[in-house]
Structures are given as C-alpha cells and as structure tokens.
C-alpha cells in the first residue's frame, strides 16, 4: 500500500511543484529533494528482505476483465534501479535548483522532472506488462518536455520531437510485443511470465514478440542504429542530461532486457539480436565519442557505448556477464551522472562546454575538479573505482564467452581504451594544463552545483573500496533477479594476476595513446570526410528522409481526398461505402436467398411505380428546370400514394402538402436561376452514372437482404396496446409523435423554426 501511495504522491508533488517553488524560491531544490531522499530511504529499507530472496509483491485489480492489474513487484533488479532513480534524483533536484536559479520556468521544470521520476520509478517497480508500457510511455513524454524545456530554441524543439518520435515508434513496437508476449504466456503479470520461460520460447509468437520488444528496448536505450536521438537530446538542460539521458531513462531498455531475460533469453535469436546490437553499439559509440568538441555530446556518445556494453552483456546472459552488467550499470550511473553535472558546472562558471576552449580550471575550481577526477577514474576503469571492477568483470565475461571469446575481448578492449581517452578528454583536459579560458574571476560554483557531482563521484570510489557495504548486496540481489536463481556476488578490487588484469593494463596504455593522438586522429577523420559521409549515409539522415516521406504522403493524400470539389467528396464517400458494404454483401450473402419469392404486386400499384420511374428518369435527363421540378413533384406524389395504399394516411397527407409546397417554392426560386447547362463532359457523366447505379444497386441489395429476414417489432405491440389507455388517442402515429416521442417532435419544431429564421434572414439580407 505504501508503495502505490508513494508513487501517487510523487505525481501529486510534481503537480504542486510550481506552486511550491513560488513559495520557497531559492530553497525549492533542496526542499523538493527531500521526497526522492525519502524514496531512497524507503527502498533502502527493503534491501534486507530482498537480498534474502523475499521480493515485495502487491497487486490491485485495475481492469480485471482484461487481465490488467496494477501490480508492483520489487525484486533485486527493481531495487537497484529504484535506488539509482531516487538517489540520483535527489541530487539532480538540488543541482537543478542552483543550475536553473534564474530561469523563469524553474517551477515548470520541477513539474516535468518529478513526473519523470514518478514514471521511471513506476516503470521499474511495476509487475504488469500494461502498467509497464504506460509508465514507459510516460517517461518518453516527460523526456520530450524536458529536452524541449528551452522551447524558444529551434534546436531544442527539434531534438525533443526527434526523441519523442524515435522512442514513440519504439513504444508502439513494444506495446505490440508485450501484447504478443501476454498472449503467448497467457497472462500479463510479470511474475507469472518469468516462470513460464520454456513455454514462451516454444510459442510461435516468440520471435515476433522478441523482435518488437527489442525495437522498443533499442530505441529507448539508444542502440545503433537508433542511437542518434541521444546526442541530439543534449539540447536539454544539463541536469536532465545527467538524470534522464545517462543515469536512468536510457537504461529503461536495458532494464527491460534484464527483466525479461529469464523469460525470453538464451535462444539463438536473443543471442544474435541482443549481443550483436550491443556489441556494435559499444564499439561505434566509443569511436564516435572522440569526435565532438562539446563536453555533453562527448558524454552522450560514451553513454551510447556503455549502453551497448550493457545490452551486449545481457545478450550473453551467462552468470558472469549478468554480474558484469549489473556492476557496470551501477558504476556507470554514478560516474556518468557526476561527469554530466560537472560539465554543467563548468558551463555555468565559464560559459562554454567546448573542450578545446577549456583548460587549467583545476586550481580555481578545486572541488569540481576533484569530483571530475574521481568520476573520470571510474570511467577510465582505473583502480580504486567501481568502474575498474566492472571493466574487469566485462573482460572476464568476454573471455569466458561460449563463442568467439577473442573477438569479443578485442572489441571490449577497443571500446574501453577509447573510453579511457574520452575520460581524459572530459575529466582531465578542462582542469589541467594551461589555463585557456580567462574571463573574469573563476571559482567553484555554489554548493548546490558541486554537491551532486562530488557525492556521485565519491560514491564510485567508496563503493569500490568497501564493496560489502552496499555494492555487493545490491548487485547480488539484482543478479539473482535477472538470472532467476539466487547467486552470490562478491565484488573485489583485487582479483589476482589474471588475463583480465593484463587486458586492463593494455587498455590503459592504449587509452593513453589514443588520448595523446586525438588531435591527429581528428585530422585524419576530417581528411577522410567522415562527418560528411555520416551526414549522408547515417541513420540521422534516414530519420530525416522518413519525416519528409511522411509529410509528402500526408500532402499527397490531403490533395487527393480534400480536392475542394463537392462531387469528388461525394464520389469518395460513395466509393468507400460500396467497397465496404457492397463487398460484404457480395461475399456473405447468396443472391438466391432474396429471390424466388412471389411478387404480389397489384396492377394499380405497379402503375404508380412505373410512373415514378418515368418521372425519375425525366428529372435526370431533362434540360428544362421546370420539367425537372415537375418530375420531382410527380415522384413525391407517387410516394404519397404508396403511403396511402399501405396503411399510412397521415404520411400521405403530409407528403401531399409538403410536396405541393416544395414544388411552389422551387418554381418560384428556380425561375430566377439560370438554365440547366451541361457543365460536365460525356465521360464524366458516364462515370458518375455508373457509380450512382452501383450505389443504387447496393441499396436495393441491402433492402432485399433485410427483407428476407422476418421482422418482429417489440415496440409496435406496446404502442398498439397503450395508445388509447395511456395517451387517450386513437390515431397511433399521432400519439407517438405528440406523446410517446413528444421531445422528438419538439426538436423537430425547433429545427423548422431555425430553418424558417434562416430562410427569412437570407431573403432579407442586403449585401452592401
């Protein structure tokens, strides 16, 4: 109960945040951070029972008819994510209060980021596929608002839209995949599904479900070739980049893969798709991270690389790999969050994020530099940091992989070495060397801006030095949850002399070399016109082409359907109706059923019918306006006669009166209108005639179909019995109109009155 209440309260707090900010002003970030802090403490309190293999499971019926329930399932995996989301969330809120202090929409920012936090917590804590999807989409939506927070800027709006479209398309695929999964597993409850892995993998729905879910996970977690939205999302304010686009939201795809791996993992398709996609992303992301000069874009590409490594490890799925994945997840969230916040602080103080324009900030910004140094240590995978442990585990997992261990380890070393160089670029270069940037007096930012990076960076070191305090139990719980069986993880900085350590040493050397050679490498890339090549052939271009295509399709379709000519609109309506109704009749209804009944027409009835037919023909064919009006009148009188013959004298009388009035009206007005002119050519007339005849034929068929079934009215006997007794009238039709359905008649009178006013106004209207 407390869990769902806490979640609801998070959204309530989000809604109230702008008002609270108005009251608290400067202190708002610190005060709002108390709520995620409370979440951290609450979730931390659950650690004990969860590590002992007793996950929390709460279930409320939501839409029981559809098997959808609002259930929450907190196991080791959810706990690890929940702690990261709430813990980093608290620090990010404090940071935002300082970073956006002068922004006039800071209150709105709190609203967005708190709703994101609620959605993200819901996503990792829910135990139902539908609820998971809803929270998943909510994170995409709040990400859209946060990236586009500075909506005055064109780039921010475009980046926000791009992120929304890419993750939104992935979300649709995910929904389809989850529904297929639910269909294959017979339930939408995660806990049950996870136990039905065998059946799921044998189901014919397995492969389509897996592909769709992978599209969802890959778009969200920025895997190649959907990675391009993440660097563009750096248009968001820095706290958002730190929180959503490195520590939490982009890991939602990884979370999903980890969550579903007991149910879906282990097959060849999973191995190829997840491992292959992850491996490509890991290497390509690391390579691309060397290119940009903007601190945040560098960090974004390195995040892409790490997300690839996480995906890759989950694809391998061995206990070693999962262990490495969970450790890397924790380490990355800590150091990347810190580095983003540092980048923001540097930007805040110096006014630039260009690595080539920064240098020697260390002496004037010692606290920021310390935080950056600790985080960079972890990113480079140097001891004594959590990043070191996770990298050792990564190598171990790669060396013990079933297939192609040498290739995997090689790719791992390449990516890690590149990340060492990147860590140098973002963590060392701005703070050491010659002071490049010399405008005014530089100093450390206020505490709100250095607290977050310092704590996150410090945690990456502290957790590694004393792993049994928190890191080991948390990863134990998470690894057990992902593997689906209790597994003990003991993280150690020192593993002894082994191949992993040798690879680590090699990595550091190679990384240092790459760091030194970066200007040279960039020069080569510039000569090879890599950027131009990527702009022409990259997925970003594909995205643009797709958008253009969509717009072109919309334009063409609108031109086609919305031509502005009444007759074309009519044609489209008629054609659609014929296509839908006509085809159904043609397929479903045997013609013989309607025929073969005796036509019991009397001669005088047939005479009326023939007269009506002739009049109709005349109305259509004549070129005289008066003749057409007269023909219409004949048809009307014919209809009235039919009413008369078939027991409807009231109708007949009304029809006679109305028909007479209509003819008079038409004659009066038509007299003032031009003669009939043949405006359309012969082909057009023939085409319209064919279409009209088809529509008429369809109506006839439809009627014959209805008439072939007996009609048992339940209303007629009621009116027959009660007309006199209840409403004191002998003419049943009249009684229905003025008594049983009197409100209808009132409405009808109103319509007539309005029409009359309209007619009067049109006649009296004088145009100036």
């Amino acid at each position, binding site marked *: 109960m407390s869990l769902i209440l806490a979640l609801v309260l998070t959204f309530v707090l989000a809604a109230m945040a702008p008002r609270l900010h108005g009251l608290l002003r400067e202190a708002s970030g610190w005060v709002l951070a108390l709520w995620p802090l409370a979440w951290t403490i609450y979730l931390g309190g659950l650690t004990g029972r969860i590590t002992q293999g007793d996950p929390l499971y709460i279930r409320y019926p939501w839409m029981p008819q559809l098997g959808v329930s609002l259930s929450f399932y907190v196991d080791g995996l959810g706990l690890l994510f929940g702690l990261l989301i709430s813990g980093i969330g608290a620090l990010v809120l404090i940071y935002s209060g300082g970073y956006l202090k002068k922004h006039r929409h800071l209150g709105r920012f709190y609203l967005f980021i708190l709703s994101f936090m609620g959605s993200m917590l819901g996503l990792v804590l829910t135990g139902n596929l539908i609820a998971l999807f809803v929270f998943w989409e909510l994170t995409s939506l709040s990400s859209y608002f946060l990236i586009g927070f500075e909506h005055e800027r064109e780039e921010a709006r475009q980046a926000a839209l791009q992120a929304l479209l890419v993750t939104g398309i992935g979300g649709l695929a995910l929904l389809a995949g989850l529904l297929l999964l639910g269909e294959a597993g017979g339930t939408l409850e995660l806990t049950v599904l996870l136990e039905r892995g065998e059946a799921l993998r044998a189901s014919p729905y397995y492969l389509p479900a897996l592909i769709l879910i992978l599209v969802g996970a890959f778009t969200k977690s920025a895997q190649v070739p959907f990675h391009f939205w993440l660097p563009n999302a750096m248009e968001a304010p820095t706290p958002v980049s730190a929180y959503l686009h490195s520590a939490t939201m982009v890991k939602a795809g990884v979370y999903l893969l980890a969550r579903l791996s007991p149910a879906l993992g282990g097959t060849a398709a999973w191995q190829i798709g997840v491992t292959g996609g992850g491996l490509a992303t890991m290497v390509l992301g690391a390579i691309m991270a060397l290119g940009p000069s903007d601190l945040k874009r560098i960090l974004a590409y390195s995040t892409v690389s790490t997300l690839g490594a996480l995906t890759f490890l989950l694809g391998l799925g061995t206990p070693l790999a999962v262990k490495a994945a969970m450790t890397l997840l924790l380490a990355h969230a800590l150091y990347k969050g810190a580095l983003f916040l540092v980048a923001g602080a540097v930007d805040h103080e110096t006014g630039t994020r260009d690595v080539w324009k920064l240098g020697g900030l260390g002496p004037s910004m010692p606290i920021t530099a310390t935080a950056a140094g600790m985080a960079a240590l972890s990113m480079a995978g140097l001891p004594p940091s959590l990043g070191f442990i996770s990298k050792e585990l990564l190598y171990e997992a790669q060396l013990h992989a079933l297939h192609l261990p040498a290739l995997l380890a090689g790719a791992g070393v390449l990516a890690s070495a590149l990340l060492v160089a990147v860590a140098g670029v973002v963590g060392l270069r701005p703070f050491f060397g010659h002071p490049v940037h010399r405008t005014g007096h530089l100093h450390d930012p206020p505490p709100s801006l250095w607290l977050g990076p310092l704590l996150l960076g410090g945690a990456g070191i502290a957790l590694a030095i004393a792993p049994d305090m928190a890191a080991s139990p948390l990863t134990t719980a998470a690894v057990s949850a992902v593997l689906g069986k209790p597994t003990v993880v003991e993280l150690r900085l020192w593993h002894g002399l082994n191949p992993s350590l040798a690879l680590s040493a090699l990595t550091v050397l190679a990384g240092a070399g790459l760091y030194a050679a970066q200007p040279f490498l960039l020069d080569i890339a510039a000569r090879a016109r890599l950027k131009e090549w990527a702009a022409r052939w990259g997925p970003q271009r594909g995205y643009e082409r797709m958008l253009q295509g969509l717009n072109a399709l919309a334009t063409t379709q609108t031109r086609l359907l919305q031509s502005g000519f009444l007759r074309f609109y009519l044609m489209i309506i008629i054609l659609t109706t014929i296509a839908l109704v006509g085809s159904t009749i043609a397929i479903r209804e045997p013609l013989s059923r309607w025929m073969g009944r005796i036509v019991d027409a009397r001669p005088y009835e047939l005479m009326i019918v023939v007269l009506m037919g002739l009049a109709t023909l005349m109305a259509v064919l004549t070129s005289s306006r008066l003749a057409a009006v007269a023909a219409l009148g004949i048809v009307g009188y014919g209809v009235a006669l039919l009413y008369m013959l078939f027991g409807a004298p009231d109708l007949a009388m009304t029809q006679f009166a109305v028909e007479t009035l209509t003819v008079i009206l038409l004659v009066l007005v038509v007299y003032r209108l031009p003669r009939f002119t043949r405006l359309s050519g012969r082909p057009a007339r023939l085409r319209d005639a064919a279409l009209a005849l088809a529509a008429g034929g369809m109506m006839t068929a439809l009627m014959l179909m209805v008439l072939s079934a007996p009609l048992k009215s339940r209303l007629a006997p009621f009116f*027959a019995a009660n007309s006199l007794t209840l409403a004191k009238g002998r003419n049943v039709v009249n009684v229905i109109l003025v008594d049983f359905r009197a409100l209808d008649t009132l409405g009808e009178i109103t319509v007539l009155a309005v029409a009359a006013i309209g007619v009067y106004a049109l006649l009296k209207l004088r145009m100036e």
Partner: protein
Amino acid sequence: MDMVLAIVVGGLYAAGLYMMMRRSIVKLIIGLGLLSHASNLLIFTLGRLMRGRPPLIAPGAEALAEPYADPLPQALILTAIVIGFGVQAFAVVLIKRVYQIVGTDDLDQMKSTDEL
C-alpha cells in the same frame, strides 16, 4: 410488393446521387429531393408493408387490432418528411442567394470561401 419497392428505392438513390454529382447547383437540389424520397421509402418498406390497415384504433375498441401497419416507422418518416422540407426550403433560398452573389451556378466555381 416489397421487392418492387426495393428496386424503386435503389433507382431513386441512383438518380439522386447522380444528380448530386452534377456541377449545376440546381441539379444538386433536385438530387437532394430524390434522395430524401428514397430514404423515406426505404424506412417505410423495411418496416414491412401492410395493405389498407392503418394504425388507427377503431371506435369502441381499447387497443389496436391485428393486423396493422407498424406505426413507429410512420412516426419516424413523418418527422423526416417535415425536416426534409425544412432543409429543402433553406437550401433553395441559400442557393438563390449564392447565385445572386457569386453569379454562377457552377459548383466548381464555388471552391473558395473568402473570395466573394
């Protein structure tokens, strides 16, 4: 007879729709009239035909005696006839007005709303 009327209704629909697809605005009005006849007759026929037994309670009787024509479709059609007349009258006057202002009866010339 209902089968004959089904064909009549189909013919009326065809004629009405054909007229509505003409470019002349007067033909549009005629087509509209044909279409409303067709629709009324459709409801009437589908309510099943009953010769010469109007739903009138005989003097002295307490309730309607079987067989009788279904009164409900009749009530609906009665409403439809009157409404149809209202629409027709309004449309006719509107067209006259439009012709006065635009100076044409060609619907293709009436594509733009703002250029009077």
